[in-house]
């Protein structure tokens, strides 16, 4: 008989912590902020330093935490930090340095309503910050948007794998709903932390001590403009590869759809319900859920644009991802937007009403 997988009930934030321990993370550095404090609380509760040897440290600020991530990633270690919107704003300088120094790591943003101190309720208004490069300079993050507790666990592992595949920071862009809700989850299998020797082989650039090689330097600084341009060109070549290889999305009833709702994360869950309601009324609606927000499923939207009458983007914001949908559609069919802001979640019924008003005429 097949051994039953162990199914657990937990919050999305807790799933991140368990997944990090299980996938062989070496370190977590964070600072408490609602609605994601359960990530660090769970790690502290689990005491992985006694089992896998993973280090967990509460930093004095989000700024310190992201720079600890820089230091850890610079050693080739598998490290992550988590925060929520205002805290992630504080991390932006560090993220820019990490991207330029080409260090693999994971940043989790469980978004809340902004701007400013805002609210602690769910939001997706950090989309621009995440996918357009929230810090200074030309850089990109691989951005994954989980829409269930299971994906909070799975994408923690995936995001770290992608980070190491491309030596680049990746981000889990979740929100208060996915972070706070509890669902069933099958946690990823335990993978031992890499040995020092394995790290030296996988990350020959890391500051693991100058043994039988030239000294390694982790830096994002260049004195000459030409040298810095070379760094930029290298980054852009890498980003082009990521665009080519790593686009991920999910479609619900798009095959015969006349209209497409585009939504990510928790909004995609609402979107699924909108599809149910619309189909009940005879409206052929499909849902496109970008899983990678960067790289964005531009080509898939272009493909769908040839067969549908219009798109509507549903977001917990004033309309951010809709701009990328419009860029992809490039004026061939209408692209509308519906969203709520400041922590208010649009319900399926009001979304369907908006869809009918704006698009289905």
């Amino acid at each position, binding site marked *: 008989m097949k051994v039953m997988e162990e*199914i657990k*009930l937990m919050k999305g934030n807790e799933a991140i912590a368990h997944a990090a321990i299980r996938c062989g993370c070496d370190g977590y550095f964070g600072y408490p902020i*609602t*609605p994601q404090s359960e990530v660090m609380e769970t790690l502290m509760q689990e005491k992985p330093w006694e089992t896998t040897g993973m280090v967990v440290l509460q930093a004095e600020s989000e700024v310190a935490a992201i720079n600890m991530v820089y230091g850890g990633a610079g050693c080739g270690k598998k490290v992550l930090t988590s925060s929520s919107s205002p805290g992630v704003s504080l991390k932006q300088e560090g993220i820019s340095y990490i991207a330029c120094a080409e260090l693999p790591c994971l940043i989790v943003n469980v978004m809340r309503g902004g701007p400013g101190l805002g*609210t*602690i*309720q769910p939001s997706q208004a950090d989309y621009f910050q995440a996918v357009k490069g929230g810090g200074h300079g030309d850089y990109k993050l691989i951005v994954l948007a989980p829409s269930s507790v299971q994906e909070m666990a799975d994408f923690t592992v995936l995001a770290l794998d992608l980070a190491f595949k491309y030596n680049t920071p990746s981000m889990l862009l979740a929100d*208060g*709903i996915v972070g*706070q*809700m*509890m*669902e*069933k989850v099958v946690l990823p299998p335990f993978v031992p932390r890499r040995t020092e020797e394995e790290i030296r082989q996988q990350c020959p650039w890391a500051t693991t001590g100058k043994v039988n090689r030239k000294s390694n330097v982790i830096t994002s600084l260049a004195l000459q403009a030409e040298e810095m341009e070379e760094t930029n060109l290298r980054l852009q070549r890498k980003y082009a590869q990521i665009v080519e290889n790593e686009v991920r999305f999910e479609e619900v009833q798009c095959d015969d759809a006349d209209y497409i709702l585009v939504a990510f994360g*928790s909004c995609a*869950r*609402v*979107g*699924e*319900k909108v*599809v*149910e309601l619309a189909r009940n009324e005879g409206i052929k609606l499909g849902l496109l859920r970008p899983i990678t927000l960067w790289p964005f499923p531009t080509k898939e939207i272009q493909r769908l644009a040839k067969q549908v009458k219009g798109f509507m983007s549903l977001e917990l914001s004033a309309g951010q991802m809709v701009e990328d949908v419009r860029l992809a559609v490039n004026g061939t069919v209408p692209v509308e937007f519906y969203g709520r802001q400041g922590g208010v*979640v649009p*319900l*399926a*019924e*009001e979304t369907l009403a908006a869809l009918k008003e704006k698009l289905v005429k």
Partner: protein
Amino acid sequence: MKTEIIIAGFGGQGVLSMGRILAYAGMLQGKEITWMPAYGPEQRGGTANVTVILSDERISSPVLQQFDIAVVLNQPSMDKFEPRLKSGGILLYDSNGMTRKPKRKDISIYRIDATDMATEMNAPKTFNMIVLGGLLQVVPVVEIDKVMLGLQNTLPERHHHLLPANEAALRKGMEIVEKEE
């Protein structure tokens, strides 16, 4: 089959944990489940609510406009969620502290005097289990055995001596819940 439930009351009444116990029992029964709290500054004394969805199929939105079942444990929660019940839905309420009765005619209404019973049983902490027992008597969305198994699995060993009191509260709730006409 999908059941969409809202449980609402004061913070400190055990609203969130009651939802969690329900969700856990649903999981043990092989159902898809989502437990979504209205998290926020609503701590002890404020209002708290949690949406629990139990389903045989993949669950879409964890945030809902309308519910099949509303368990309301204070007046603000009755005011907020009575109008959001689907027609034919079920409202379960504790009359303690309520200033009015439910108004709607197109729903089934049940009353459970769980606050009084918890006091009578000298076990105020089992209040939410009395309510849960009442709910499961009215709508057996999960099996009582699964609730008890869930408690056994999730309570730390040192609290296992509380299991009999919880089971007694569940049974008592099943006894005292009443349909209102």
